[in-house]
């Protein structure tokens, strides 16, 4: 307090100016901090992009960030020689079917749980939440693989897809919230109009859930697209079935001869690109999903 009084002889104008310059300083520091973190978030992506356009020689010995000569042919080489066309197709295949399957199974279960007090509901929900919390890591992959051998699916992408769909607990819990948000009166009105349990699902719940389905689909698609360990284990001996993540990591050991870092970066950009493009258009949905998991 006494220091404040000591400063009192200052004129009002001086005080105002010092407050203003203090504010300016703190604003500058704040923005410096924010931009620094933004640079940290973007630098690997930017370096990967510029690096993917350099020659192997420039990438390993050059000292500038920008490529001297923009070698777009790296992408062509990755696409053709390094088999990224195949990897991309496999990734798309897995992600699309996993998303469709997860949404179908998740919405059906969520609708039943949200609307009917069926016998064993508590047990079912408990089992679902247990799968979220218990994690014994890679151990589960072994019995899962054996099961797929039993079904004769270990040599196709369907094995991976079915296992990814079976891990739908997160989507299920998100979808329950969405179904509960649909007013029950709508179901009842539909029942009076002659709908049954199934037609209410198809004609009332699903149409009203569309925006929520989009958000859940994005979430599931991202998970399947980025999955690495499961497709790795299932395609170890079958290069033709590998996804982008698996094929890309395989480049670490070189294709035939020495490792080619410029191809690794081109491949990395190819596999990041679809997610980044989707993100640019739908970043609000992505963030809404994450935020929603806290509000629960």
């Amino acid at each position, binding site marked *: 307090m006494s220091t404040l009084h000591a400063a009192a002889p200052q004129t009002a104008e001086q005080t105002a100016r010092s407050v203003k310059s203090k504010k300016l300083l703190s604003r500058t520091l704040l923005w410096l901090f924010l931009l620094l973190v933004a640079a940290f978030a973007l630098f690997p992506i930017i370096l*990967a992009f510029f690096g993917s356009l350099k020659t192997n020689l420039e990438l390993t010995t050059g000292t500038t960030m920008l490529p001297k000569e923009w070698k777009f042919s790296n992408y062509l080489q990755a696409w053709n020689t390094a088999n990224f066309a195949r990897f991309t197709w496999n990734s798309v295949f897995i992600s699309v079917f996993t998303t469709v399957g997860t949404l179908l199974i998740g919405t059906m279960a969520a609708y039943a749980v949200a609307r009917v007090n069926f016998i064993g509901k508590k047990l079912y929900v408990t089992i*679902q939440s247990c799968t979220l919390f218990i994690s014994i890591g890679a151990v*589960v992959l072994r019995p899962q693989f054996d099961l797929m051998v039993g079904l004769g699916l270990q040599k196709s992408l369907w094995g991976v897809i079915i296992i990814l769909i079976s*891990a739908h607990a997160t989507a299920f819990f998100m979808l329950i919230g969405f179904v509960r948000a649909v007013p029950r009166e709508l179901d009842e009105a539909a029942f009076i109009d002659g709908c049954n349990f199934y037609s209410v*699902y198809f004609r009332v719940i699903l149409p009203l859930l569309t925006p929520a389905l989009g958000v859940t689909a994005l979430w599931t698609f991202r998970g399947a697209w980025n999955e690495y360990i499961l497709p790795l284990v299932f395609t170890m001996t079958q290069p033709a079935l590998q996804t982008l993540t698996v094929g*890309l990591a395989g480049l*670490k050991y070189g294709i035939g001869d020495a490792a080619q870092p410029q191809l690794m970066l081109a491949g990395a950009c190819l596999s990041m690109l679809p997610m980044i493009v989707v993100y640019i258009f739908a970043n609000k949905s*992505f963030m809404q999903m994450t935020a929603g998991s806290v509000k629960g």
Partner: protein
Amino acid sequence: MNQAKRQINAWTFVAPSLILTLIFGVYPIFWALKYMFYDYQGFGEPLYIGLDNFERLFRDKEFWHSVVNTFIYAGGKLLITLPLSFILAVILNRALKGRQLLRAIYFLPTVISASVMAIVFYVIFNSYNGMVNQLLVGSGIVSAPIDWLGPKYALLTAIIIAIWGAVGNYMLLFIAGLQNIPEDLYEAASLDGAGPLRKMWSITVPMLGPVLQMIIMLAITVSLKGYESIMVLTEGGPYGKTEVMYLYLYKLFFPVSSGGTSIQQFGYGSAVGFATAVIVGLITLIYFYVSKKLNDIY
């Protein structure tokens, strides 16, 4: 009658989900609970050996070394990630020009695959010819290239990658929590003459309480479990310096080309899987207990 029909209807809708979960989610856990008492290497007849696997586990230096590494890895990641994402959340929760764009930039890393990013970091952090070293040496910040993936710095590099991928996610979770705090509390505090720090300690932290506790618990379990990016980056090397427990576990089931054991060990692996799950569970419980105590004192 109608009620019975409704029961059946509901069950037909839950059945696909339940069957898939039981087969691919629950059965593997019981598989592991069985084989952790067996000597089983994937071929031949599994041999029941009682608690021998656990005896071996307690003597397995490599495993306990990986547990220590896991704590360093998870601890280092959380020590930076949580405060940083909290600060960002507090800043970006206020009216600030361009905050939507900044949020989107910070969150961007979370949409990219950990394994893909590990490859990118592997190339740009490469010891003698990686782009990061080129830029650091070129601009004179360091005099000699840093061996980012060598024995000395590999774990640090892995932690940097983990932080890079996590900050945006936790920032967003914190923002969601902050938005639940009523604005008038801050207004009332301002009228009473509270400064920004005072408001932080007397309103934000206590009001965020349960959400904060949940987010930190989530962060702890997620960071103890993460091993994908390390697997791609270093496979646990060099000399086991980046071996974390879930990666060690993975190698017991799917031996990798470089380092570690080269024989599949399903029986022992199941025991290790059980132990890692228990370790994660214990830490979560301890955290839960301590944070509850702290809440009570507060």
